[in-house]
């Protein structure tokens, strides 16, 4: 993606977007003022500064964040990202989204997010290990298997989670360690990870697209789609949509855009990308395409699965699709949202569409907690069951309140949280 798409100088912050969406849904269901006040703010915001010894013996100070939005439904849960642009406002938005996601999917978890402000590509593997361990140590009791459970996110992976688990467990008494391995999810399979976690977000997107097709009586066979972002989410969504008979027309990532009207084989592209430093650039079985024209591809489905604020006032008018399935968090800003509605483009909103990741994280957490190991069939069928129920709840709410799907998703989440607050009361 070029700088235009990355859109560093945002007109509205992502947190503004979250609050705007929240207010709209809260107004529509007349949410009690007291519950509204609570949900409109984060619960805890933790900033830690910690020293790490570099390979050359020097000490560098790092700043890490953990924002916990709400835990009325269960322990806080959310990813950790390593990125130079990590800042508190963005982390707040992402933490809040996690609360809504769990509430829509009806899984007993709350919302959190965190990260360290640095560029991991500039550090050695040993340094990354020390940074991760020292961050975990600094967070101390602010995380825990029944309190706040981190997971991988941008630039973090299962190896980072393994280090986090190991560091956290070393702070626990030896005879209790094995009942705390669910302190993080997204671990390597051998260290307590779940089968199906790697493809979970992509799988969830595909399940929701299938639900949409069934609801709209749309035939996915010979349908066309294009994908922004070809990381974990974009590549898995592309691959898993293939068996339905749909055709992948275009892909865009940070290195550029490619297009082939006869279809791109997602598995083949992934093989190429793996040997090309993760980039799609130079793939020979598709033609390069101008980045500006990418969103104007005529197709049935667009799956944005890269960064925030991609569908905007500027880009939304160009879209020529029936459905936008949001694989990324917050790819559409407030104005982009209005334009989608005006153009009658269907939308599967992020907090429903990409919940597959947190749902299978929940499965990993459950398996660790129960000392079980599920097979892929069990994971997939449970994921499908949960995300389909979420889809149905959102579809029903959209119909009942005669509103767009994003607002409907918020309504489902807020309704659920409202009920819990009413039942439990506000202490003291």
């Amino acid at each position, binding site marked *: 993606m070029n700088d235009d798409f990355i859109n560093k100088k945002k007109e509205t912050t992502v947190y503004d977007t979250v609050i705007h969406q929240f207010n709209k849904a809260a107004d529509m269901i007349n949410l009690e003022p007291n519950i509204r006040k*609570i949900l409109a703010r984060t619960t*805890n915001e*933790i900033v*830690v500064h*910690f020293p790490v010894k570099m390979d050359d013996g020097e000490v560098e100070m790092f700043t890490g964040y953990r924002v916990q939005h709400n835990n009325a439904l269960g322990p806080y849960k959310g990813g950790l990202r390593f990125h130079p642009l990590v800042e508190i406002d963005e982390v707040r938005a992402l933490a809040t989204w996690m609360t809504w996601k769990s509430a829509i999917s009806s899984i007993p978890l709350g919302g959190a997010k965190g990260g360290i402000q640095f560029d991991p590509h500039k550090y050695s593997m040993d340094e990354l290990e020390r940074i991760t361990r*020292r961050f975990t140590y600094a967070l*101390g009791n*602010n995380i825990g298997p029944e309190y706040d459970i981190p997971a991988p996110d941008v630039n973090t992976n299962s190896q980072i989670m393994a280090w986090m688990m190991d560091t956290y467990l070393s702070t626990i008494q030896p005879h209790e360690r094995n009942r705390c391995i669910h302190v993080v999810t997204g671990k390597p399979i051998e260290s307590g990870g779940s089968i199906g976690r790697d493809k979970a977000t992509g799988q969830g997107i595909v399940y929701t697209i299938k639900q949409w097709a069934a609801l709209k009586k749309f035939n996915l066979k010979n349908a066309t789609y294009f994908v922004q972002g070809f990381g974990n989410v974009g590549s898995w969504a592309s691959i898993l949509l293939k068996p339905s008979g749909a055709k992948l027309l275009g892909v865009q990532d940070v290195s550029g855009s490619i297009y082939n009207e006869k279809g791109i084989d997602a598995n083949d592209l992934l093989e190429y990308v793996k040997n090309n430093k993760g980039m799609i650039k130079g793939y020979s079985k598709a033609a390069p395409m101008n980045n500006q024209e990418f969103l104007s591809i005529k197709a049935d489905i667009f799956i944005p699965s890269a960064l925030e604020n991609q569908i905007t006032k500027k880009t939304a008018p160009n879209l020529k699709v029936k459905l936008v399935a949001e694989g990324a968090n917050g790819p559409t800003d407030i104005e982009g949202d209005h334009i989608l509605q005006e153009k009658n483009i269907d939308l599967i909103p992020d907090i429903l569409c990409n919940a597959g990741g947190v749902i299978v994280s929940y499965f990993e957490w459950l398996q660790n907690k129960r000392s079980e190991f599920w097979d892929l069939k069990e994971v997939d069928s449970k994921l499908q069951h949960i995300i389909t129920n979420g889809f149905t709840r959102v579809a029903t709410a959209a119909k009942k309140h005669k509103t767009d799907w994003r607002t409907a998703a918020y309504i489902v989440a807020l309704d659920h949280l409202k009920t819990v607050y009413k039942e439990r009361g506000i202490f003291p």
Partner: protein
Amino acid sequence: MKETTLPDRMNTYFNQAARLLQLTPKAKNIIKKNDNEITFHFPAIMDNGDLIMITGYKIQHNNILGPYKGSLHYLPLSDKRIMQALAMLKTWKAAVMDIPMGGSAGVVFIDPSLFSFAELERITRRYIFDLGLNIGPEYDIVEPGINTNSQIMAWVHDTYLLSFPPHERNLYTHIATGKPVALGGSLGSDKAPGQTIYTIIKEWQHDRGKDLSKLTFMMQGFGNTGYWVSSLLCKNGAKFIGLEDKHCSIFNPSGMDPEDIISYIQTHRSIKGYPRAQKIDHESFISKKATVLILAAAENQINKKTVSLLNTDLIIDGIDNSTDGKCSTLLHEKGIEHIPDIFSNTGLEIIGYFEWLQQKRSEKWKLSQVNEKISRRVISAFHRVKQKKEQFNTDWKTAAYVTALSRIDRALSALPLYP
């Protein structure tokens, strides 16, 4: 010219001391930054049934010497740099006095005068509840600060203990210090700040080969600290010649009786009109000749304007930040010694530490034991700081910072960085 703020001032002193100590960049980087910072939002129910959201804050500076310990402030608005400076100040004070603790600060962003007693209780309890495991008797200990008192510490104590199973609760009664005596507060708490300053003055006088009968002193501020310093000094032979409060200044070269003044204040609310001294203005008060001037009233009392008037051998800070950092050179040129807040205003830290120890050990110390322990601790700190003062050929303030920093630096170099 504008007065420097507390964070700027502390930064200057820190850098000065770090330069003298030739502190490594590693140590400097670690000590200068705070460890953790937590902001949280919690609901509190008002007496009329309304719910309002309140913001709580906790900053933990450094715990290499022992658990964090810091004051809880109820302040309507706040500059985070000031909060960081307050937490840091606690680290330095503990390090100077050889108290095995680190520094922190807690804030609830409210104006407490706008809330009822019952509302303040709910807010306090909810604040502690939400801090959860970010505080603890062996992790971060709470003490009173701006707009908070022993009643609030009692609520802190009770709320924290309620989060534990009944049979464990009494293990954790050292979560807060500055509690009411009936709930485990230490005897001698009211006297401790004054006694600390008194002990320093006495030791300083002995150190230059004189005793207290040769000492005259003037006092600015006659609150708890001011009263106890005066009372202890007079009982031991010193002469109390001048006093100033918010309303006026009084002077009597043949000496005044603090007990008499306190009973006058109890009926007249101020020293205004006190018959057994002459009324003078602020400028002549500051310029009177005496051995010691004790500053126990307000911040920035000795500044560029007042420093040239001073006519004493020693000034000593009885509250934090009573002397503007820019005066150091001028004081030095005039040959006036200045004992700084991080050394002299540590009575609360000492007695807080003693209360913590008593609770942890399930002991109750007699007043005479407390007195003796304060005295011993202050005298040994005096000689540690003095040794640094001589070693680096510097003033008391820099020497106090050097004492604190070298204490922390030694701990850091003994511990390799984890992992």
